[in-house]
């Protein structure tokens, strides 16, 4: 029994999502190989080889794999699939696109967005936007899983697995990469961001919202969110709204500033790994879900907090 983990990477860098998915892959109990399929992806493969607990890294290098296009990537995975009874991918845009295609070609029913591995054949996953959790058991000899990485800690570094070159499969030639527009701004997309900083109506005005929230978001390399009340009051644009009628986010860190914590807002961020609340009212409902709460005047706290944090750009990549 062996597991193949499809790495998430950008050729020159290995994404942290791979390390998190690895934790899940290792929990299946079988030796894990990591596939790095890309173009000039040696650096990513090197980084993968340093993850603890794996057997080896497979590096498939071809220009057709440069942009993680689904069809060539799937073809490459399929060529290797025979040696594995579990194929795992992080539930990233690439993983979510590639894994089901692999599963169908192997005639396997996939289990998506695994949040917990109970046994090599039993998993928990969210349904109804996380309002219910299913425990699913697979009766299949071979399985394909995608992993909701927000639920797993990254596997540690410190290993030194061999990197083995494998052939990339021939490009089926039915798709072509035209262009990529990665967000250049320091601000990531709200629903994909690792950190979200959100402001509420207590900010009092659009000017204050920008003045107080944006520097903190920039500092943390975070996306900016807002409560519905803040959006309705005109302090933040509509597409910053987090909540039941806005966006549903599951970042590693969610900082709620001046947000009371109406359940409609909480519905949008309850799956965050860590919630911080800063509010003047110690009884605000947000403190019932916050892991860390700081009661006080946000106009005093925020500048202090922003200054106390290391800049996002100073942190190690990944």
């Amino acid at each position, binding site marked *: 029994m062996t597991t193949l983990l499809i790495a998430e990477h950008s050729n020159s860098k290995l994404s942290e999502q791979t390390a998190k998915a690895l934790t899940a892959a290792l929990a299946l109990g079988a030796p894990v190989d990591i596939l790095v399929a890309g173009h000039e992806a040696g650096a990513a493969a090197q980084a993968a080889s340093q993850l603890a607990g794996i057997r080896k890294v497979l590096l498939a290098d071809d220009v057709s794999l440069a942009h993680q296009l689904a069809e060539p990537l799937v073809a490459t995975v399929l060529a290797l699939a025979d040696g594995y009874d579990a194929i795992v991918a992080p539930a990233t845009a690439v993983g979510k696109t590639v894994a089901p295609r692999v599963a169908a070609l192997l005639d396997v029913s996939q289990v998506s967005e695994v949040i917990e591995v109970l046994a090599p054949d039993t998993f928990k996953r969210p349904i109804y936007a996380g309002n219910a959790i299913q425990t699913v058991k697979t009766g299949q000899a071979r399985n394909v899983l995608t992993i909701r990485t927000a639920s797993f800690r990254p596997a540690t570094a410190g290993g030194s697995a061999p990197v083995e070159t494998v052939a990339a499969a021939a490009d089926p030639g039915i798709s072509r990469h035209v262009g990529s527009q990665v967000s250049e701004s320091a601000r990531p997309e709200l629903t994909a961001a690792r950190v979200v900083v959100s402001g509420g109506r207590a900010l009092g005005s659009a000017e204050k919202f920008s003045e107080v929230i944006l520097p903190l978001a920039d500092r943390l390399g975070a996306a900016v969110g807002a409560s*519905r009340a803040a959006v*309705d009051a005109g302090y933040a644009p*509509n597409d910053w709204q987090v909540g039941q*009628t806005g966006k549903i986010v599951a970042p590693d860190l969610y900082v709620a500033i001046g947000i009371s914590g*109406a*359940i*409609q807002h909480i519905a949008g961020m309850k799956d965050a790994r860590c919630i911080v609340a800063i509010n003047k009212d110690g*009884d605000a409902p947000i403190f019932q879900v916050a892991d860390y709460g700081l009661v006080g005047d946000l106009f005093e706290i925020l500048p202090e907090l922003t200054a106390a944090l290391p800049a996002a750009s100073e942190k190690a990549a990944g």
Partner: protein
Amino acid sequence: MSEETAAMPERESMEFDVVIVGAGPAGLAAAIRLKQVAPELSVVVLEKGAQVGAHVLSGAVVDPIGIDALLPDWRQEEGTPFRTPVSEDRFMILSKESGFTLPAWLMKLMPPLMHNDGNFIVSLGEVCAWLATKAEALGVEIYCGFAAADLSYDENGAVEGVILGDMGVHKDGSHGPDYTPGMKLLGKYVLLAEGARGSLSKRAIHRFGLDAGRDVPKFGIGIKELWEVAPERHRPGLVQHSFGWPLDGRTGGGSFLYHLDNNLVAVGFVVHLNYANPYLSPFEEFQRFKTHKAIKPVFEGGRRIAYGARAITEGGWQSVPKLVFPGGALVGCAAGFVNVPRIKGSHNAVLSGIEAANAVAAAIGAGRSRDTLDAYEAGWRNGPIGQDLRLVRNVKPLWSRFGTYAGIAMAGADMWLTTLFGGWSPFGTLRHGKPDHASLEPAARHARIAYPTPDGVVSFDRLSSVYLSNTNHAEDQPVHLNLADAALQKQSELAEFAGPSTRYCPAGVYEWMGTGDEARFVINAQNCVHCKTCDIKDPNQNIDWQPPQGGEGPVYVNM
């Protein structure tokens, strides 16, 4: 309807024999009866909720007299929604520290009309879904997700049909790319079955002077939750009502608590909207009621699964307006047939639907259309609805005039007299007094009520509650709660009455942000659960409730 569009939009229109607004018990009963007696008629029912039952909220203990008249063989069917007959009836009087349950012998002394033998505890929403299936099987067309926004009049000023709300209008009133003018549905007759304080009904009553010579309409607000309780706490068939705490003796209202099947308990609280203290919050009265030590135990180990609210009519016999106007009629709670002491109205809603349908079928059969259904108006007081309401006509006036304890005692005696003496009462027919909105007294005359903070176990905050109503509205549409005079709201609703809308609204729609000159009236229209309380209780009648886009509002399930 917005008058802002320069030219009248091109509207598609379609003709039916009968157009019914509202898929509640009255509307569906009318539709079914029409098809029973005149199957060739084309009957269309419009419902603004996303599905039948989505906007239906009631206790409910139902007297099957209406359903028996509509569907005589229903008891032979399998799978009807009437699964829980009333098996026990309890009456409690609560004080802050204790609860006194009326002993069985005293219960037996209540007038017969108050007894619940033969009645059923149901989800009225489920009953409506069941009626809708029967209606559709008979060929009635039911369209959910479409709000009738206005009446359409012919060249004689008779109601010729209804106009559905426009879709795709931006918040500022301009037309979006998806703008679609609402269709016009024309009929020989239009039946307004919108429930209490219906928006088209309000227009019809005003335009045709239907309330001339009638007493003022009276209302209560009913707030309800559905709980799944621990099996050991569940007593299917138990009906329980209470008076007293937490309301004071001058404020009408009380609680209901009904055990359905499947470990479900329907619990709710009614506050009469003629209350005087602007600091009163019906929602918070309800929440603290559940914390009473005689009430709380049933909820231990249980979980709250649904929440909602709706205005309930309380005017009864004296307040029912003229039911008919050229081209149509009012049925059900749009007319106001709730029997206040019995807390039942759906039976009369069904009966009125039947009566109206009979009149419509006869009229169309005789080649008539767009005239007044005089037979329906002339007949109701002598029929079963009238008989039901006449006996209790003085209950609400006595309660309002003499307070809860003396008033109810006198009302009890009065009901015995009317029962024994064929409707006669020594009081004659008492009048209701002021309209509800005029009963509110200035804040300066009252003290703030210190409501307890919700414990999150049996009592909850407003927003968590609204969350469980599944209410939803597209953000980019005109606000459907029309404030006629913003300045008046500030100088009266806020300055004089201390903003009662922030308390009587069970959904947290209204907020006053800021103080003094900076004070702003915020209307969170998206929270609205379509209860109509603001339309009723605003002290200056400054808020006019209009239907938002169809398919929006609460999505009640089994309420």
